[in-house]
């Protein structure tokens, strides 16, 4: 079975530079637009400049007031010191495990559910889908205490289970994103596969999934970033220091040991780098996720 058709992307953020126009038009027309964009971009990047600047200062230089705007001497060993003063690698590994499992869970469960809503016709599916949509708007805090009680009863506190297991049980927003995409698969294609005798399960993985790659990528990345950045979940469920993720690990360390600012910034750089790396590697999926989430 070979499928060549590819669903049309809903609303791709079209790159303006694709539209070829004579370069003369650019020269002076948009000066104020440029000034505004450059100014805001710089403003948005200043915190990161200061993070790097502070992270690379030696302790004596850190004490200088007013602070120097660029390290006189690049203290690369701050990174080593940051990693060794904090059980950084431990936190890092915990975070990676959580992130990978969360992305995996989000893709597997939500793709399956979205397929059930988009590609199988059954009575009442639209009604239930409304229910899914409504749950997007239910404020999460109402669930915190009951879930803590439930997970405590299951003896899941101080394990990654309360964070990971829910990701395998569907998430309204990702179901919505994937369903949007799967709805564009031509019905004939699915029916052809059915006539060939393929089960729905096979059709999901061999027909639908390959065609929904952009949306799957977007969901995987959104879920991964969500897990990497999660603070409240680990704060509530991971009280044991050896299980800390980076988010609460750094916070706990800062408040108990009064960590030096250059080391705190060095550690922050190490937290931020994987996200930045992921962004540049999968920029397409990030953009896809944003454009998919703009409800039409």
């Amino acid at each position, binding site marked *: 079975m070979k499928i060549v058709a590819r669903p049309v992307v809903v609303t791709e953020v079209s790159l303006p*530079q694709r539209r070829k126009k004579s370069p003369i038009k650019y020269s002076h027309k948009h000066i104020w637009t440029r000034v505004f964009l450059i100014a805001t971009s710089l403003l948005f990047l200043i915190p990161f400049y200061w993070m790097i600047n502070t992270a690379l200062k030696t302790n004596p230089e850190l004490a200088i007031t007013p602070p120097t705007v660029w390290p006189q001497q690049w203290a690369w060993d701050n990174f080593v010191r940051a990693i060794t003063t904090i059980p950084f690698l431990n936190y890092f590994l915990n975070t990676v495990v959580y992130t990978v499992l969360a992305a995996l869970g989000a893709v597997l*469960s939500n793709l399956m559910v979205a397929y059930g809503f988009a590609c199988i016709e059954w009575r009442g599916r639209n009604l239930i889908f409304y229910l899914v949509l409504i749950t997007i708007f239910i404020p999460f805090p109402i669930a915190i*205490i*009951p879930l803590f009680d439930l997970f405590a009863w299951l003896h899941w506190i101080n394990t990654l289970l309360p964070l990971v297991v829910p990701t395998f049980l569907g998430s309204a927003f990702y179901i919505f994103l994937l369903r949007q995409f799967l709805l564009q698969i031509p019905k004939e294609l699915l029916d052809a596969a059915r006539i060939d005798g393929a089960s729905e399960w096979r059709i999901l993985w061999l027909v639908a999934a390959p065609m929904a790659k952009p949306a799957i990528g977007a969901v995987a990345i959104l879920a991964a970033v969500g897990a990497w950045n999660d603070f409240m979940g680990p704060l509530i469920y991971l009280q044991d220091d050896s299980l800390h993720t980076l988010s609460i690990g750094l916070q706990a360390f800062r408040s108990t040991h009064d960590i030096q600012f250059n080391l705190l910034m060095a550690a922050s750089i190490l937290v931020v780098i994987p996200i930045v790396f992921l962004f540049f590697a999968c920029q397409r999926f990030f953009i896809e996720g944003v454009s998919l989430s703009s409800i039409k």
Partner: protein
Amino acid sequence: MVAGRSIYAGKRERAHLLKGLLFISPWIVGFSFFVLYPTIYSFVISFFRYSGIQPPVWLGWQNYIRLFTDPLVGMSVQNTLFYAALAVPIGLIISILLALAMHREVKEVSLYRTALYLPSIIPVFALSFIFIVLINPQYGLVNSLLGRFGVPQMDYLSDPTGAKVVMVVMAQLGAGNAALIFLAGLNGIPKTLYEAARIDGSSHLGCFLRITLPLLSPAILFNLITGVSGGLQVFQQAYIMTAGGPANGTLFYMYYLYRNAFSYAQLGYACALAVMLFLFGLVLALLLYWFSQRFVNYDAS
């Protein structure tokens, strides 16, 4: 809904129903355990005194009466509304402006898009650490820059209002995400509309008010709802940067709820707080929905 239902035998239809339910079963389990059960549980427990260890004791409406007379609830509501009322509208305006600017055909737009979007995926906890340093009177850039213009040095986090304003400013670093959603919306507006309006003699501002804004309204609604919902749940920044202080100036509603649940072991009272937030969020969502029915334009044709 189902085309040609008559050819489906009852058996066939039941098979489809079963298949459908089977595929959405992860959601059914998730919904039952993470939405249905917690919502009911929170409502019930909010009428009890419950520490999580001893069995719950019936209190009637007492938690709710306490909630309306608790000065810290009043304080945390004020703080949260202050934060949301500033952070959300400012964020909307900034992101619309950024989207409009990126929509202009500037050649190197992908550079700006990257620079503006990237901060929005940086974890809030990391941003909080960075801002602690950035605005620190001794180690920070902000004070040393302002000092050159004669502004006296100040520890913004030691002032109740200053600390909230810092968090409002920090929240703006997330504007890139909303801006891209607006940009997608702008790209969906047909160029011919503007050309037609131009021929009719509309000004730039007229075009913006009569074409851009109405056609962008679904995206505005989406960003407004997610913004408000996030704004009402603000927590992390305060936990990391100020621990709720100074003088409870950054004790946000979510933070007070968290403390009641996990520091004071007053789970019943915390549930009452959660129920109130839930009801408030629900009413707000319904209001926005009602509002959207009247003003939001879903027809781009």
